[in-house]
Each structure stands twice: as structure tokens, then as C-alpha cells.
């Protein structure tokens, strides 16, 4: 089954994304993007009745910090759907997300050019 190329789309088109998100396309939390990091918080999930997708998401994140894009890849779900699920899990306090470490501030090309011009004039 693992090698069956239809296996993924098979499961995906039996349970459609709108069923998983209950028709919601907008996550309840703003600010999630592809590279936001997802951290599973220690806590008991048993009082919450979770969909299989949310359960899988939690299980994935328990193994280590993943980005939203990676979670979506592993779950084989659209990014937008994963954001909705993540927001729900954040609302129930089962996961937290944080912004990725920003890239080092690189000087602007224009500034470099000016420096170069200045040096050339010396």
C-alpha cells in the first residue's frame, strides 16, 4: 500500500479538507506562516476529542520541532488546512508556535554599491 501512488490521494479524497476543518478556511490565529515552528506542549490531550489529523499532528510534533510546511507535508494536507488545525490546537493549549529565527540583516545592495563607489573614488 505504501508504494501505491494512489494511496495518498485515496485517503485524501475520501475525507475532504472541508470536513476536517468543518468548513473553515481561516485559522483562528493570525501570524502563522510556512516557516512558523510548531512545538507540542506537554499536556494531556485526553479531555479533548481530537480528529485523527490533529492526533497525528500532535504525535508528529512530539518528536521534535517542525515547521508548518513540514507538518503539512507529513500529514499530506494543504497548508491552509494545517493552519486551521494548528490554531485549534493552540486554542486548546496543546501546541505553541513561534516565529522562525530571522535571517541576519544583510546590507542593501545599494549601500554596498555606494561603499564600492566611495572606495573607487579614493
Amino acid at each position, binding site marked *: 500500500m505504501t508504494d501505491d501512488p494512489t494511496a495518498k*490521494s485515496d485517503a485524501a479524497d475520501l475525507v*475532504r479538507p472541508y470536513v476536517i476543518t468543518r468548513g473553515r478556511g*481561516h485559522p483562528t490565529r493570525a501570524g502563522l506562516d510556512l516557516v512558523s515552528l510548531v512545538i507540542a506542549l506537554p499536556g494531556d490531550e485526553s479531555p479533548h476529542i481530537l480528529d485523527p489529523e490533529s492526533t497525528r499532528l500532535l*504525535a508528529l510534533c512530539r*518528536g*521534535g520541532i517542525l515547521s508548518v510546511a513540514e507538518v503539512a507535508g507529513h500529514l499530506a494536507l494543504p497548508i491552509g488546512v494545517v493552519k486551521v488545525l494548528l490554531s485549534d490546537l493552540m486554542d486548546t493549549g496543546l501546541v505553541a508556535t513561534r516565529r522562525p529565527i530571522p535571517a541576519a540583516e544583510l546590507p542593501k545592495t545599494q549601500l554596498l554599491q555606494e561603499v564600492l563607489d566611495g572606495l573607487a573614488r579614493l
Partner: protein
Amino acid sequence: MNFVQDPALWYGVAGTCAAAVYVARSRITVRDLRERNRLLAEDVRMRDEEIDNVVRVLLPALIETGDRIRGSLLRHEQLRGTPYAQGIETVVGMFTTAIEDARDRADHSAKNALKAAMRTLQALAGEQQVAISDMQNNYVDAQLLQDLLAIDHMNSQFGRRAQVIAALCGGWTGRQRAAAPLYDVMRGAKGRIRDYLRVEIRMQSNVAVIGRAVEPVALAVAELLDNAASYSPPHTTVEINFQTVPNGVCVMVDDAGVGMHEEARQSAARFLGATEPVGITRLGHPPQFGFPVIGMLAAQYGFTVSVDTRSPYGGMRAVVMLPSELLTTAVDADPTPAAAPRRVARVSRASADVEPAAAVPAAASAPTGGAAALDGELPQRRRRAPRPVEHAQATAPTENPDRSDAETAGLMGAFLRGTRSGRVPETDDKGQESR
């Protein structure tokens, strides 16, 4: 002189006797004839009434309903067994056969035409679903996703309608699927009806439905859910519960409507218990596809559906009994381990291809690979230990067997973040960025 000895007297007596006998006999004859006459007249009247019954009642009823006439064809049971009655039976029988043949032919051609038309629509709905899935995967904008979800939902309903008609015409119920968890089959069914948000699946189950039965069960449950949602107030929920029974699992669909009246219930029970295909021309106007198609699918795939109980909420309870033959506990019973490693394995395979190059400095004890590359030969990949092929998918197939799936994923995440941070981070909030 004795009178007695007078022969004339004796002639007279004999004559009188003869006359008396004659009179008596002719009286009897007349009475018999009258009686016969009356009987014959009665017989003619009965036959007239019979033929009248055939022409005015039986044949019009046949034409109207198309159903074989149950009960006696005769009004007067005295005629039973006579050639006349047999003649009537033959005429009505031939008429019935002719009507049935004509209806079967019409039904057959209607079914074939519908089946072909529905196959096209089903294929289109399938294609559209793939296109919608691609869009959902390619765009991350929330508003766009919201709209796509709505379109996706409409497409699913559209696909279901086509599927139902096709199934009723003996056509294609949809493609063969892999075995799927019962919970997913129920969610699949739920997604195909208009009011899917009102449907609540109250429990999870650890059984799965075998591949062959996934579509038929999903389709039948979708019809039950649609029926339940249509006949209950809009603010109420429709509940799905599972109950394990000795030889299978029962799926219960409860609504909080007013239930079905007796006639509808009987009609539903008749369709649900039908063992032969339902004529497409007998579905009423407008045609009711629901129960006939559920009955057909149930008979075809070996599950049973009943609607003869009341739900605890006062509405109808439909019970779908899935026998053990249609169930399995294997493969996808718990989707967590089955689905997640599949993707991880795929990623890991990709990373395994990258790794030797990255691992060259670490593998300093075997510098021949790098050296050979400098000499212009192809680098050779070395394995430290032989590795059984079948493990490649079961575990993360990297050179470090201790690495867990999550760690591999973490590494890939680091790699992804590295490449991203190396690029200009302007594409982040465009919204329409593709994955």
C-alpha cells in the same frame, strides 16, 4: 253385468293414467327447462360481468401500475376452472407479460442511457476534485482556501448525485479504494451531503472497512444522512454512533425529526429489503433515489440497513449493520503510524540520496570516493553494512539506523530553513506563494 268386466272402463282408466303421467312429466320438463334457462341466463350475465371486469378494471389497473395483479382475476368464483375463466386468465397473463416486457425494455434502455451519462459526470467530478485539491495545495491564502473548500463541498455533492444514479442503474459506484478506517468512511459520507456541519460522529472506532466496500458504505450512509438531515429541523444535529455486535459493527444514524409515517416506513422497508434491481421507472415523481439505492448497495455488498426503530430524539434511527466480512482491523485501523511514516520514508529516501556527498568529510576513513571523483571517475557510494531492502520503507532508510523519523524530519526542517534563510525573505507574506 259387471262394470269391471267392461273393457271400455279399463281403457278409460288407462287413458286417464297415461294422461296424468304425461301432464306430470311435461310439467317437470317445463320446470326443468325454465330452471336451465334461468341458469343459462345467469351464466351469460356472469360472463358479461367478467369480461366487463377485465376491460374496465383489470387491464386499466395493469396499465396504470404495471404490477402483476395479485389475488383472483374472477368476480364469480363459480366460473373457476371453466374454459372461459382460463381464457380470461390467459388474456390477462399475456397482457401482463407484454407490459412487463415493454417496461423492462424501457427500463433497460433508460438505465443504459443514464449510466453512460453518469459515468461522464462522475469522471468530470473526479477530475474537478483533483483540480480543486491541487489548488488547495498550491495556494496558502486563507480567503482563497475558504472559497475552494465551498467549491470542493459542492463538487462532492454533485459527485454523489451522479454516483447514486449510476449505482441505481447498475453502474460504477466509484473507484476501488484501499481499506479505510470506519471513522474516515463516515467522514467521507458526511462530506457528501449539504448539511454536513450538522452531522456529528460521536465516537471513534478501531475497525476499518475493506477496500471493496468503502465507496458503497460511504454512499449508503451519505444517503441516510441526507435523509436524516432533510427531515429534521435545521438547528438539530444528526448523530452517528457505532455499536460492536457479535458478527460485525452497527452504525446508527439518529435524527431529531418527526420520524416517518407508517406508509413511508413500509415503502422504505420494501426498498431496503429488495433483492432484485429496482426499476428506474418506479421511483415516483420526482424520483426518490435514496432508499432504492441503499437497498441495492446493501444487497450487492452484503450489509443490511433498517429504518424501523425510533431515535432517542424522537426522529428516525437508521441502522447499518456491517458484517465482519466487510471489516478489517489491519492496515489503516490506526492512521497515525500508517500515514505519517509513509511521508517520512519518502523524505528520507530523498535525503539518503543527498547524504553521501554531505557525509564524505565525515567518512574520512574511506577517502577513495572523493579521490576517485578527482580523477575523473564516477564517485562510488559505499555502504558500511549490507542493508535489507525491505527495511527501507519500514524504518528511516538512512545510513544512521538510530535516527528516528522525527529526527529525520527535524533535519529536513533545518535544511529547509537553511535554504530559506539563504534566500531573500521577501516572498514570505505574499499570500499567493506556492509551496
